[in-house]
């Protein structure tokens, strides 16, 4: 049962729950949440595997494209190929935890407060357009999704700063990104949490820069608290200073190392839920960059000892991942900062309904104009590294952040590794950054 949202021109999936009456998720809700394609795949006129959408025919596909991609294709900056819609089944432990804890979770009185959450998807039921806090619930689904990973290493992680008009690569940065979840763990030992954890950290992100020379050995550690109303702690180790510096968290809206991305942009949204007003805008079938990594056009630019190859990039300036896009059920979510001095006026996130990951964000500047688009490619784990196979966890696989106004982009090619050995707890300590200097 679908209908069009007036003014958006997109197809909306029927709202599953009774209007205005949020309820505890049923078994059926949970099945539908995690297996939306069990009974039928989404369809749209003209959208079939192999279809190439380009400047010439984009008008026929506006209903399945987000405004950002519509614009790029219309301008001839890129063309995309449709891939078959596939199910990205979620890790069974996570699904089971969702079932066990269904109905126990509720929003607190204020944004950023969550009561009764243990593990799994907090709000597996279909979002209700009449629920004024439906957007906030989706934000929680994203926060506690499997995409937060119990432990993940993205290493190596190659970033390029590119002039979109000329295609000139202005800067290359080689990173290692490491993520660790302290609580609500379901897939990697220890489960359900890492103890002791006196500060009640939820998650930590450790970043190290290996190249180029001027930022080599820069390290960043961000510690996020279970209490969303508490500000992150962030520490920066500058290789040339050999000293860990406390960061004020205001730097999360800074262009990260001069790229087109803010720390707050990481993974679609990487900030406090309580910092935003969340608004659910509807659910639609949209083309999103979900694919099987090993079946994509891969780059020979970087060579790995294990033969791993990275997603290739193409399109204008080489700013677009050369991947297939599949029609997927997507929740459209808007976040607007509470802080009126925030450099962003609002973001529109396209959140995959099955995995709760964000694969597209449209970032608007303070004037309200479209500023940047963030495209994240997600691969099926069974078509990636052997160690990721069968994990039921969707690896982050490529990204591009395009600054439409500056005609500039930052691209990321990476190797995501679901490997607990690469994310020991000790890696996320401040002392590790010092490394004995």
């Amino acid at each position, binding site marked *: 049962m679908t209908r069009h949202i007036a003014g958006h021109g997109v197809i909306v999936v029927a709202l599953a729950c009774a209007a205005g009456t949020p309820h505890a998720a049923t078994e059926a809700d949970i099945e539908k949440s995690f297996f939306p394609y069990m009974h039928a795949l989404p369809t749209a006129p003209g959208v079939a595997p192999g279809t190439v959408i380009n400047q010439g025919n984009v008008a026929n596909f506006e209903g399945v494209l987000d405004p950002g991609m519509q614009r790029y294709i219309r301008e001839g900056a890129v063309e995309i190929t449709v891939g078959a819609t596939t199910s990205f089944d979620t890790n069974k432990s996570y699904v089971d935890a969702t079932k066990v804890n269904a109905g126990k979770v509720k929003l607190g009185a204020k944004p950023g407060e969550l009561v009764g959450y243990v593990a799994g998807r907090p709000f597996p039921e279909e979002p209700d357009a009449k629920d004024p806090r439906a957007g906030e619930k989706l934000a929680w689904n994203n926060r506690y999704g499997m995409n937060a990973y119990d432990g993940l290493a993205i290493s190596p992680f190659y970033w390029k700063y590119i002039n979109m008009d000329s295609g000139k690569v202005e800067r290359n940065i080689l990173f*290692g990104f490491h993520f660790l979840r302290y609580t609500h763990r379901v897939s990697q030992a220890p489960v359900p949490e890492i103890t002791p954890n006196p500060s009640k950290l939820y998650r930590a992100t450790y970043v190290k820069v290996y190249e*180029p020379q001027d930022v080599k050995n820069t390290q960043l550690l961000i510690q996020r608290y279970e209490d969303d109303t508490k*500000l992150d702690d962030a520490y920066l180790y500058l290789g040339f*200073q050999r000293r860990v510096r406390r960061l*004020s968290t205001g730097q999360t809206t800074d262009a990260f190392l001069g790229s087109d991305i803010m720390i707050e942009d990481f993974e679609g949204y990487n900030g406090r839920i309580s910092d935003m007003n969340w608004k659910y805008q509807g659910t639609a079938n949209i083309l999103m960059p979900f694919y099987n990594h090993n079946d994509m056009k891969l780059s020979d630019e*970087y060579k790995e000892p294990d033969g791993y190859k990275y997603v290739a990039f193409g399109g204008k300036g080489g700013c677009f991942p050369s991947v297939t896009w599949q029609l997927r059920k997507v929740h459209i979510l808007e976040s607007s900062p509470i802080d009126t001095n925030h450099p962003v006026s609002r973001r529109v996130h396209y959140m995959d309904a099955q995995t709760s990951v964000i694969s597209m964000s449209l970032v608007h500047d303070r004037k309200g104009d479209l500023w940047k688009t963030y495209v994240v490619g997600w691969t099926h784990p069974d078509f990636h590294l052997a160690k990721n196979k069968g994990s039921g966890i969707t690896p982050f696989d490529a990204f591009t952040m395009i600054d439409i106004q500056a005609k500039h982009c930052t691209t990321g090619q990476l190797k995501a590794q679901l490997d607990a050995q690469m994310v020991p707890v000790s890696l996320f300590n401040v002392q590790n950054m010092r490394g004995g200097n």
Partner: protein
Amino acid sequence: MKTARDISRPKLSVLAAALPLTVGGAVQAADENLPDLASSTTPWVADVYYENHTARRSRAGLAKFRNTLQVEADRQMGDGWAFRGILRGSWDGVYQLNKDEYGRNAGGAITLENTAAPLLPPVPTTAGTPLNLTQVPHGGGINNPIGTAIGLPPTNALGFDLAANPNDGMRVLGDRWHRPERGAVFGVPVRPCDRDSRGCRDFGGYGDLNLRELETPEFNDRLDFLREFYAKKTFPLADGTELFLKLGRQQVVWGRTDLFRVLDVINPVDYSRNNIYDELQDIRIPMWIAQAEYRMGASESMQDRNVQVVWNFDKFRPNNLGQCGTPNVMLDAACFFRGFANLWDNGGTVANFSPVPAGTAGAWAATDFGPHQIGVRKVHLPAWSLSNTQLGVKYEGITQGGLAFSLNALTYRSQLPSLHAFSAGAVNPFTGGTGNTTPPAAGVPVSHLIAFDIHYPRVNLVGGSLDFQIPDANAAIRMEGALTHGEEFVNTARRELYSKNRVLRTVIGVDRPTFIPFISTTRATQISAQLFWQHIIDHERHDGPLGTVGIVDWEDNFIGTLLIKGFLAGDRVSPQVMVARDFRAKALTVAPQIEWSVTDDFKVTLGANFKYTNGSSHYKFDDARSFNPYPPFTTYTAAGQPFVPGSAGLPGFEPTARFRAGPIGTAVAEDDIYVMVRYKF
């Protein structure tokens, strides 16, 4: 097709041959911080850099043409051990290209102030010039015959051998930062020590260097080309904690401050490289150190806990303050040392020393001292012994609430020299003998002698640091404090002219990223401010008949720093300005700089540093002329000074004012503009 390490792998085959370099995978690089994954050996991974730093200094001309080649090499050695080496070699062409200022032809003949000239007879001096010149040459002061003529015993030892200590290759002490202003100054040899060995002493890595050693400072018997050379390993323990070991030549960095050091005192610093303007990473002098960290991780009440033990078992080294005659002489101290050492060895002329009329302050005659009368006699560098090694302990943690802190303790040797006046072994210039033999001071013990040995005393430090953020201000706060026992200060009220004082040093720093629209609307500009406070406990000051007597340094001093650093064009262009203000010295330095990363591998930096002071008279302090070691000859009787040693407080610039002017005030005439290029192969 590029390989995974193409953006980091050296392309010079010659270097690949020198080190058995092979292509290291990015995975290896990315995993180097992972303690559990280093069980196998890996190929060498190395980066090679070339840097040229060229500076031009006001008045002096070229002040630096330094060319540096640096290799940074890493390798997993197996069994969890990892090796890291940084090899650096540099050649500074300034000694060849500006040899008249800093090289073989530096310095020349000097003249010295002689304020008593109108009161003096035109008698010939050793230099052949009459004594009554307002500016006399080196060798143009009161000597033995003149001394005898004015009533000193004929045995007086005034005068020196001008052939052994010629008026050539010299500069007037302090001429780079102050005028004599009726004070006691003297000539300082400034040429490399193979060219002119006068006053050359090893003060601990500087002071006795020849031209080659100055040009290529890393290639010495302390193997300074090994900037770092260590192995490290993390041992996982059964209870989930870790023991981290790091053994070898290394830097150990404590504290949370920039530019000036409070807790970061484990490694001495080489200020000869670029005064205070290089990153500390590049100027800390690596030491052979064993450090162990017991990383306990979280507990029920603390989010992180670590205990670190640092044993610096290297042979002692002090800070390198720069050899006199080279471009960077911190505090102008080495010029004072070299000039004073030359006075001890060979004697020399001291401007404005002998009061005319005798015992009356107002006009002074230049005086030729003979050898072994005044000056620096000996440098006592601590030899290697177990008891001379240095040991530190640090506990570092993060509380539940996110407050990061450290508690530190260190026992070490002072990295700055301390001057100890000695009382025996010097020649009384007025009698030619030793001691006081002349009535009414016959038999009075000699003290306050203007003759010193240099020592590096042991210092014990306890301190701590912390940082936290203030969300409402969008700022991070850093604080650091240290209390030391054993530091020594020039104290003209003491017989030995120094005293041991406890010192409290604290700093508070604020870091705030701020969007400044005219710089960038998307990239925050970093604003970092620090305020240092130094307090000398039991600071001693007395009023003497001619001025203040006591500790030269300020009892309380404050230094403020401000750094504003912007980032443009994807961080490839970074303008910044650094300002440092020494409040009591009334000295300011402003250092603008812009960095441009032309490519990932090639960076160009343009910059300058300018210094300003609000006058200099406040630097003057008790300057030794009225120490009265040899009464009655040195007694200011008109001021009521008794016939016993002890200072009357007559002020002047030399030699004490440098301790009040500080590193900025003493470099006030050394405005530099520079360009640096750095390329990674």
